[in-house]
C-alpha cells in the first residue's frame, strides 16, 4: 500500500459533487437505456430509469415478473470496478460480487446466482495472468462465502494494444429472487420528512475512488470486503423489505455517499437535509466520497422508524431527512448546498453530449 496523498479540493464541495456526477462512469446511461426496448413482454416491473415520471433517475437493478400467475420476480444487476482491480486484483474481484449483491438487495432481491464477464490483457505476460488469477480468486471466494453459484462466465484476453492493456475488468452479473414484486423499492426519494440512514461501515478507503481519479489523489487503501458483514446487512435489509419499512434504497458505489444521495434526489425530485457528524471521526471528504463496500442509503418510512431501528442490528446511522428542493450536507460546516435541478443537469446531460 502506498501512503495516501489526499488531493487538494475546492472549498465548496458542491463543485466536487457536480463534477463527480458528470463523470461518464457515473452520469445517466439514459442515452443507451432508451435506445433498447427494456419493456418488451410487458413484465418489467422495476425499470432501469426510476423516479417521478420524466425525472429518469438511476436504478440499482431491474426486476422482471416472468410468470402471469405468480408475484415472484427476478432481479438483475451488475457490479464491476476496474480501478480497484488494477490496484488490487483480489479485492477488485471481491468488489464486483459485493456490488452486484448490494444492487440486487437494493430493490428487494435475494442474491441467487452469478455469472461473469472477464476482460483482461495479454495473459502471456506474467503480471496480466497474475491479475486475472487474483481477480478470479476474489470472485470465487466471495461466491463461496455467500453460497452463490456461478454456472457460467466468459473470458476475453489480449485486450491490449501497443498503448497497453485495458483496465482489468471483471464484471459480475447477479440474479436475485424477489419473493414478492409488490414489495420492490426504487432509488428515488419518496416523501418529505422520511429519515435517511447509511447502512454499513464507512471507512477511510480512498484508493481507486472516483474522487482520487478526478482530483489526482494518490495511494491509500483499496476498499476491503467482508462477506460476513455483507451477508448480515443483506439479511437485515431483506427483513425490512419484507415488512415494507423501506421507501427508497440505493447502493453506495462510485463517488461514495454524496453521489448516491444526489442520485436519490434526482429521481425523486426531492431534496435532503443531511448532517453527517454522526458518521464519526473521519475527515468530511472521506465520509462523503469514500467507496467502502457493503453500504446502502435507505429512506425509511417515518411512521415505522422504531420498527426499523429494532430490526437493524447491523451498523447504521441516521444522516438526515427528506425535504425541500435542495441537497444540503453539513459536517459542522455546510459542505454541500445545491438545487436538485442543478444535480439533475450535471448527471443527466454528459452522455448525450459525448455521444450525440
Amino acid at each position, binding site marked *: 500500500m502506498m501512503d495516501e496523498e489526499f488531493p487538494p479540493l475546492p472549498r465548496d464541495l458542491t463543485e466536487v459533487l457536480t463534477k463527480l456526477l458528470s463523470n461518464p462512469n457515473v452520469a445517466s446511461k439514459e442515452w443507451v*437505456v*432508451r*435506445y*433498447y*426496448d*427494456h*419493456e*418488451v*413482454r*410487458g*413484465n*418489467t*416491473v*422495476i*425499470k432501469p*430509469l*426510476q*423516479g*417521478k*415520471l*420524466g425525472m429518469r433517475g438511476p436504478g440499482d437493478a431491474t426486476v422482471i*415478473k416472468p410468470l*402471469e400467475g405468480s*408475484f415472484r420476480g427476478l432481479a438483475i444487476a451488475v457490479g464491476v470496478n476496474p480501478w480497484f482491480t488494477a490496484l488490487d486484483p483480489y479485492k477488485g474481484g471481491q468488489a464486483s460480487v459485493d456490488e452486484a449483491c448490494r444492487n440486487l438487495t437494493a430493490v428487494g432481491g435475494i442474491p441467487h446466482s452469478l455469472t461473469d464477464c472477464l476482460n483482461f490483457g495479454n495473459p502471456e505476460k506474467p503480471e496480466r495472468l497474475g491479475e486475472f488469477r487474483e481477480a478470479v480468486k476474489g470472485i470465487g471466494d466471495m461466491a463461496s462465502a455467500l453460497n452463490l453459484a456461478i454456472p457460467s462466465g466468459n473470458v476475453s484476453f489480449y485486450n491490449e494494444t501497443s498503448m497497453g492493456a485495458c483496465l482489468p475488468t471483471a464484471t459480475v452479473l447477479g440474479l436475485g429472487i424477489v419473493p414478492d*414484486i*409488490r414489495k*420492490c*423499492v*426504487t432509488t*428515488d426519494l*419518496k416523501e418529505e420528512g422520511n429519515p435517511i440512514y447509511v447502512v454499513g461501515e464507512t471507512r477511510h478507503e480512498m484508493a481507486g475512488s472516483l474522487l482520487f481519479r478526478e482530483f489526482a489523489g494518490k495511494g491509500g487503501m483499496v476498499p476491503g470486503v467482508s462477506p460476513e458483514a455483507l451477508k448480515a446487512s443483506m439479511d437485515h435489509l431483506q427483513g425490512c423489505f419484507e415488512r415494507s419499512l423501506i421507501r427508497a434504497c440505493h447502493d453506495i458505489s462510485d463517488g461514495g455517499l454524496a453521489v448516491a444521495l444526489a442520485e436519490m434526489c434526482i429521481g425523486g425530485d426531492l431534496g435532503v437535509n443531511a448532517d453527517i457528524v454522526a458518521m464519526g471521526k473521519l475527515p468530511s471528504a472521506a465520509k462523503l466520497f469514500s467507496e467502502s463496500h457493503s453500504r446502502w442509503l435507505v429512506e425509511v418510512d417515518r411512521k415505522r422508524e422504531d420498527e426499523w431501528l429494532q430490526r437493524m442490528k447491523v451498523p447504521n446511522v441516521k444522516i438526515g431527512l427528506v425535504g425541500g428542493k435542495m441537497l444540503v450536507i453539513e459536517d459542522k460546516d455546510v459542505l454541500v448546498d445545491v438545487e436538485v435541478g442543478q444535480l439533475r443537469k450535471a448527471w443527466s446531460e454528459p452522455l448525450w453530449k459525448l455521444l450525440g
Partner: protein
Amino acid sequence: MRANDVKVCVLRIEGTNCEEETAAAFYNMGASPEKVHLKQLIHSCPEEMRRNLEDYDILALPGGFSAGDYVRAGAIFAARIKSALSKQVDEFVSAHKPVIGICNGFQILVELGLLPAFEAAMSREPQAALYTNDSARFECIPTLLRHENSGNCIFTSSLPKGEVVMFPSAHAEGKLMFETHEERRYLDLLEKNHQVVFRYVDPEGRYAGYPWSPNGSISSIAGLCNPAGNVMGLMPHPERVFHRYTHPDWTRDSRDPSGDGDGKVIFQSAVDHVVKKG
C-alpha cells in the same frame, strides 16, 4: 355472449414480439385469445393448424419488428396480408368487428390502408405513413396520452374523453405524416370523422413536443381510429400497463400495485363491446 366466448386472433409473423402480453391482456379480461401465425390464416400449414379469420370476434396486430422492419416498418407484414387475405380482412372490418394495431401493428394497419381509411374500409394505397422519429432514434420511454375521441371508437368506449393515461412507447418509426398537399384536408377529415383517439401530452397536459411526444407526429397524434370506430391503431403500448405494477412510477404511491394499470380499459372496452353486441 359471455366474455369467455369472445375469440381474439392475435396475429403474428416472424419478428412479432409482443404477442404474449397482448394475448395476456385479452385473457385477463376473460376473453379467449389465440396466438395465430399468418400462415395459419392463409392455410399454408398442416390441416389441423388452419384457422379462418371469420371465426374470430377481435383481430389484434401486436408490436414487434415483423420481417425485421425491412423496406418500412410493417410493410412486409401488410403486403403479405394484402396479397393473400385482403378479402377476409375487408369483410372482417366491414362487419364492424374490432381490430387493434399496437406499435408495429399500427404501422401495419396504415400500410394496409385500414387507417385512416377515409373513403372505404380499406384504401387501395396507404393514405398516411409512420415515419422515422424526429430524433432518428429508437425511443423506449413513458408517454402520456390524452383521450380525444368523442365516443365512436370501440376501444376507448369506457375511457372518458379528456382523460390522460400513461402508455409507454417503444419505437423508431412513429411519426404520423401525410402527403404535404393533403395535410390540411386530412387533419380536417380526422377531426370531422372523430378519428383522433390519442394525442401525446406533457405532465401539465399540454400537447407535447419531444420527448413527451417521442416522434414528432403531426398534431401530436399517437392513435387513430377509422371513421366507423372499429379499427384503432396506436404507437404506445397499452398491453404493457395492464397492471399497475408495470407503470414506471408505481413504487411512489400507496395504490395497490396489483390493481389496474392504465392500459386495461382498451381491452375491457373491446371485450365489453363484443359481449354486449352478442
